């Protein structure tokens, strides 16, 4: 498994799509940073005069929107990098050279999972702290300082998103072509994101039916729920005794419970198990 793990890491780093994504991520951070710079320059006088609601509103809005796009990027990376993991490699012939060696299919699968998960975790972590860092640096404010355990918890729920997507995509790729897996997982991911918006709208409108629809989408694919959990963890655990109000749609008016985090973790393990059984039983 160790060889496959290292091979997957190496493959991920050498993939053109990863280079492209890094380039685009750099572009996004520059663009985002420049936007923050423009906003916070206007608010400069207010910052100097201390905490005020306008600044907190701006900070909240731009921080959550940055975090949302960052989580979207990690999701896209997870999908694109893992969509051809099994069937794609069988179709291309890459898998035959590996499976003819004294190595079990489970070792191949778990090696691929861990290799990709490491890559996505590191990428997600880098993005997460880049967004926080940019906001802190460009606002010139220490408002965005979080209690360490909650910062770690938020980073974990944030990086869990691509890993959940990885487990589901791996399971799909044991049976479907890269195109087929891509279509299914993109629809599920889209459903999860839209479901998240619907849930926030339901809360705003105080319409429990609409809210439940959002929760249902989180049960189908608990990726957006992890994003909402990240946002709520951060906004409720600042080192200063205030709460950042949630930005509309991108925030979290009604944070998911701890049970949802447990559910998401189990969900990921179940799909990993499905991937293992499906790959072990199939013809290659």
């Amino acid at each position, binding site marked *: 498994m160790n060889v496959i793990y290292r091979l997957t890491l190496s493959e991920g780093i050498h993939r053109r799509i990863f280079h492209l994504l890094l380039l685009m991520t750099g572009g996004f951070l520059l663009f985002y940073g420049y936007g923050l710079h423009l906003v916070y320059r206007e608010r400069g006088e207010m910052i100097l005069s201390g905490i005020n609601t306008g600044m907190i509103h701006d900070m909240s809005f731009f921080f959550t929107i940055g975090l949302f796009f960052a989580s979207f990027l990690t999701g896209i990376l997870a999908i694109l990098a893992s969509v051809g993991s099994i069937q794609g490699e069988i179709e291309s012939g*890459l898998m035959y050279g590996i499976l*003819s060696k004294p190595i079990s299919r489970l070792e191949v699968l778990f090696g691929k999972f861990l290799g990709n998960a490491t890559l996505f975790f590191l990428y997600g972590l880098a993005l997460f702290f880049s967004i926080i860092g940019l906001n802190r640096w460009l606002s010139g404010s220490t408002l965005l300082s979080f209690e360490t355990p909650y910062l770690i918890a938020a980073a974990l729920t944030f990086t869990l998103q691509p890993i959940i997507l990885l487990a589901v995509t791996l399971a799909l790729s044991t049976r479907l072509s890269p195109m087929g897996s891509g279509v299914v997982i993109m629809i599920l991911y889209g459903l999860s994101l839209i479901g998240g918006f619907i849930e926030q709208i339901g809360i705003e409108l105080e319409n429990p039916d609409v809210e439940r629809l959002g929760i249902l989408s989180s049960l189908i694919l608990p990726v957006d729920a992890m994003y909402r959990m990240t946002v709520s963890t951060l906004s409720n655990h600042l080192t200063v005794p205030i709460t950042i109000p949630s930005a509309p749609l991108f925030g979290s008016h009604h944070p998911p419970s701890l049970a949802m985090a447990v559910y998401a973790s189990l969900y990921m393990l179940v799909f990993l198990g499905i991937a293992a059984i499906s790959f072990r039983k199939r013809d290659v």
Partner: protein
Amino acid sequence: MNVIWTDQLSKTYRGHGGFRQASFAVSKGQVFGCLGPNGAGKSTLVKTLLGFLRLTSGKGLVFGRPLGDKETRRRIGYLPELFRYHTWLTGEELLRLHGQLHRMPESQIRQRIPVVLEQIGMLGQEKKKIASYSKGMQQRIGLGCALINDPELLFLDEPTSALDPIGRRQIRDLLVHLKAQGKTIFLNSHLLSEVEAVCDALLILNRGRIVVQGTWEQLQIGSLVGRIRLFCREETELARLRRLQRQKPEWREAVTIIEPSQAGHHAGNTQTEFTQNRFTLPGFTQTGNTPPGITLRIVLRTREEIADWVARLVAEGFAIEEVQVEKPSLEELFFHWIEEKETGPEAKQHLSRHGEVG
């Protein structure tokens, strides 16, 4: 000792495709060829033997262990028909990776890499990225990956499909070298010359079924042809031959009479040589009155059987001018057996009598 053994092994996809009821054995040190037209089931057979595909029915063992056994794979090398490797690695890194996948110690990998590079004719190319390799070079490095663990059993699925004639020759020489080292090789190919050059035994698959299998000698049964040219003294000899065919079933089944008027059409170059020899044989003078010679085309079960036929003809009072046994080429054998299966033995015999199938 059998390295590969199967009994009624079948792999089908919902009752279609694949192959059915394959029973054969490959012994240690044998180079075993698997021939067949496209879609015959050759690659499916190899993939089943390697455990990539779950068998539908029957039994199979490799090194006495069930198909796909993980530990057995330590002793196996495989070059897939569809080869693709990690393009960002160099040739050397790829060989190292495959050594690591075999769980070979690093010292052993270091020792094997130059040996393998030499074997596949890629010394000096190992520092280049796979992405820069031509298709032929990728196939060679793929063969290197199959050889890195110094396997006892090699599965090669169309190993020269991307190679130029020089490359094919080199791989053929390598196979001969590996054979001399006592390796067992299962060679899947539709290149008849490749199989003919290196294989000791083979099986022919057509439409998922084994048409025939065995050693060269065994496969030649039914397609080994003897040509006996009679020295004709009288016009009546042709009539005598025809009478013998009517009276004796074995003459009827095995012998085709090629009359002088048909000779050029049926016998080709061999007949021309006979005709030329007729005038140059020492001790004979062509008078112009002697009737032209008759050639008998005889289907033999063994090479030695030709002597029996000579004895029978002499006993019947015929004079023999020349005797030849034609060893069929693999191409002739291949078509012989494929057509035998397609048309059935009777039709085959019919075609054979008319000189259309050899």
